[in-house]
């Protein structure tokens, strides 16, 4: 039986169609994946299904009934829940309060909410999902993975029939992904239909039973998971086949460009030392919370350090961000929306901000020069936009990432610190970014890359440092590099049992 039937849905934003005549069906017992490049319309489709966005043309049939209402609350009460990549929670409230906040007291019963009962139910649901944190913990103290579990539990408190998860695994560690998948399968077995949106195809193939491929707002194909392959999916999504980049050849004995000595930032980075060579891509692996992003931030001078030195070949000791930039050390941060871009400024301005030495004179901006440089970078990185006056907020994830990276490249970048280069980025942009990283390294740039995407980490890095609890748990290079070896170091498990 189909829980959900969408017939010829179309949606326009202004003149551009985001969805064109999309049909979508979902059976109760399936985990249905939707894949496509950024901007293909996946998020819009699920937003329509979950009632966050009204549809322009077409209709949605849920549970056999035409859905005419558009009140979010009503839709949620009918059993549809959407879980975002970034959990939509209330950081100041406790787990319990987060779960209960939209609970409706039944009419006729006393209006006092029974916190005791709610706490019991919540505890029970959490333990079913294998969560061990206390319901009184403030949500801001939880990891992203645990926050997602809180989000799932919030949905489960109602009679859930359809759960939509939008890129749930983007910032999860492999172990957390496993837990998430187990949760999804359990729910599915209990009769909850699931729509799964994902960028990592190997995960999509693992979890789903059917896959809908979207491209430019249209359904290209619907495939049974057992009858398709990663290659075919990519081909369908992109319309051309991409060559997945292969491991770099060994770098020759080039010069050391950056030395890190005994770096300490309390609570995050604990006595870390290493060196990077020119032309080398140094991967940094580890679990979320191991201190990887914090390490990059400490090197860049953003984070207070109590001990240790960062030495650049050209400029000596680096202490502040300004010194780092003038030594050619730049950071492309993980949270591009907040730290990498000015969302409410135009793309040109976002590209110009790091190049003011080239585009301004005597403290005055030169718009012609800004435009020229901006255009160059936009062309070089194939940033897709409607107009260069478009705001950064309006770009898709992949294009935002390109802007966040491209803004540095008019400067002489010697050392690129890049944090999760392909988080929330579509396959097309991802491969372009990878290509760029490889090319830049070949031309002598040193790259320090933090990534939770195991494949990216393994394929791009010449050498991998694995972090655990703020320390370097181990270094891998050459043939030692494998998914298993990274994981083992990251989680602290050795062949004889637990380490430390």
């Amino acid at each position: 039986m189909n829980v959900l039937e969408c017939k010829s849905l179309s949606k326009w934003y202004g003149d551009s169609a985001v969805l064109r005549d999309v049909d979508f069906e979902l059976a109760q017992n399936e985990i249905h994946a939707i894949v496509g490049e950024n901007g293909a319309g996946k998020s819009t489709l699920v937003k329509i299904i979950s009632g966050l966005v009204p549809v322009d043309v077409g209709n949605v049939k849920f549970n056999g009934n035409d859905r005419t209402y558009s009140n979010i609350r009503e839709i949620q009460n009918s059993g549809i829940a959407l879980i975002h990549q970034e959990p939509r929670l209330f950081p100041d409230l406790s787990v319990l309060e987060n779960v209960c906040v939209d609970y409706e007291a039944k009419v006729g019963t006393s209006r006092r909410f029974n916190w005791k009962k709610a706490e019991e139910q919540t505890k029970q649901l959490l333990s079913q999902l294998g969560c061990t944190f206390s319901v009184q913990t403030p949500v801001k103290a939880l990891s992203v993975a645990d926050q997602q579990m809180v989000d799932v539990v919030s949905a489960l408190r109602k009679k859930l029939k359809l759960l939509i998860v939008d890129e749930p695994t983007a910032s999860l560690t492999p172990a957390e992904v496993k837990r998430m998948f187990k949760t999804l399968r359990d729910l599915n077995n209990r009769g909850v239909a699931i729509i799964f949106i994902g960028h990592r195809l190997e995960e999509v193939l693992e979890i789903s039973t059917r896959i809908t491929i979207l491209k430019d707002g249209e359904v290209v194909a619907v495939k049974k998971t057992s009858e398709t392959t990663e290659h075919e999916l990519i081909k369908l999504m992109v319309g051309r086949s991409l060559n997945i980049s292969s491991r770099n050849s060994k770098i020759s004995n080039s010069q050391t460009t950056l030395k890190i000595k005994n770096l300490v930032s309390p609570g995050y980075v604990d006595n870390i030392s290493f060196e990077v060579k020119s032309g080398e891509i140094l991967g940094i692996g580890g679990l979320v919370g191991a201190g990887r992003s914090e390490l990059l931030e400490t090197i860049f001078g953003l984070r207070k350090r109590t001990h240790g030195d960062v030495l650049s070949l050209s400029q000596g000791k680096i202490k502040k961000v300004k010194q780092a930039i003038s030594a050619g050390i730049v950071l492309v941060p993980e949270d591009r929306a907040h730290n990498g871009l000015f969302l409410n400024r135009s793309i040109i301005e976002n590209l110009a901000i790091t190049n003011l030495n080239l585009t301004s004179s005597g403290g005055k901006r030169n718009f012609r020069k800004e435009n020229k440089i901006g255009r160059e970078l936009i062309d070089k990185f194939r940033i897709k936009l409607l107009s260069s006056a478009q705001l950064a907020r309006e770009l898709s994830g992949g294009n935002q990432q390109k802007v966040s990276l491209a803004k540095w490249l008019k400067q002489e970048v010697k050392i690129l610190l890049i944090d999760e280069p392909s988080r929330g980025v579509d396959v097309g942009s991802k491969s372009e970014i990878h290509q760029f990283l490889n090319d830049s390294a070949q031309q002598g740039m040193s790259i320090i890359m933090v990534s939770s995407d195991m494949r990216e980490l393994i394929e791009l890095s010449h050498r991998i440092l694995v972090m655990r609890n703020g320390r370097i748990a181990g270094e891998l290079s050459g043939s030692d590099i494998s998914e298993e070896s990274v994981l083992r170091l990251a989680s602290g498990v050795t062949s004889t049992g637990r380490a430390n």
Partner: protein
Amino acid sequence: MQLNLNSKASILFRKREFGIFVFILILLLVFGSLEPRFFRSDNMSAILSSVGILMVVGAGQTLVIVTRNIDLSVGSTLGVSAMVMGMIARENQDFPIVGLIVISMVVGGICGLLNGLLVSYGKIPAIIATLGTLAVFRGVVFLVSDNVQIDPNDVPQGIISLSTTSPFRIPWLLIFAFFSITLVWYISSKTLFGKRIYAVGSNPEGAVSRGLSFNKLTIFVFIFVGVLAGLGGVLYTARYATINPADVGRGLEFEVISAVVIGGTNIFGGSGTALGTALGCILIGILSNGLTVVGVSPFWKACATGFLILVAVTIDNLVRKRQEEKFLLAIRNQRVVK
């Protein structure tokens, strides 16, 4: 282990309130040693009366700030309510006291409703909307009163006695203050509705996607603070027995918002407690009275008040940031150990 964590969390939040408490003690000590008259009972009751009025309005303001809004118009709202009530009392000497109180609160509620509509459906940022109504309501005070003040002999004795007596030996004014603070405590910690108010302040977009009505909650908190400002108008009249169009409630927003912020309510929304606000009001009340009593010139007083508030908030920020970091770190480490 989890119990331990909870107690850590609650200690963290209590520590802040303890800090304000210590600051209050220091102020008492300093003012008392500089000027022994400070501790005389008439001065103490003067402090309590002004603290009471602050608490009533501050209780409402706490919820407004928790939703990421702010109400700058509380002083003028208090003024309008007091003036309307005073004029009715002047015309009808026999009007029942309870009726006067209700009228004042209703007028305040209407002012609040207007603010709420401007902010929710009008989509005007609260700081601008209430800046506008701050001036508008003050203008209304002048218009309705024709710039004639209500004199003490026109204010019913029943209203005046609210600041001095009650059947319970504590003045009604303080009972109202206690009630307001308790009400906000109850709403914020015991009811789902209160949690929604905090949720909206903590993550407005998240609140909408969970089906919480942003507009409804916003309008509610503005009406709530308006009603309490109306009650504040009654208490103001009880205390001063005079309603001067230019003076009534003027500058109250400064003291109230200072008290709420010192009390630990996050100006960016999402957190804040009634107890903190109560302590903040006590601190502001003592500070303002003490500076006058020890003979600081009025010209210096404003400066000194502002300065001390900045010092208090700065110290608190520095201390709290460190504590919060430690707390989060403790949780992280605990999780790693697991």
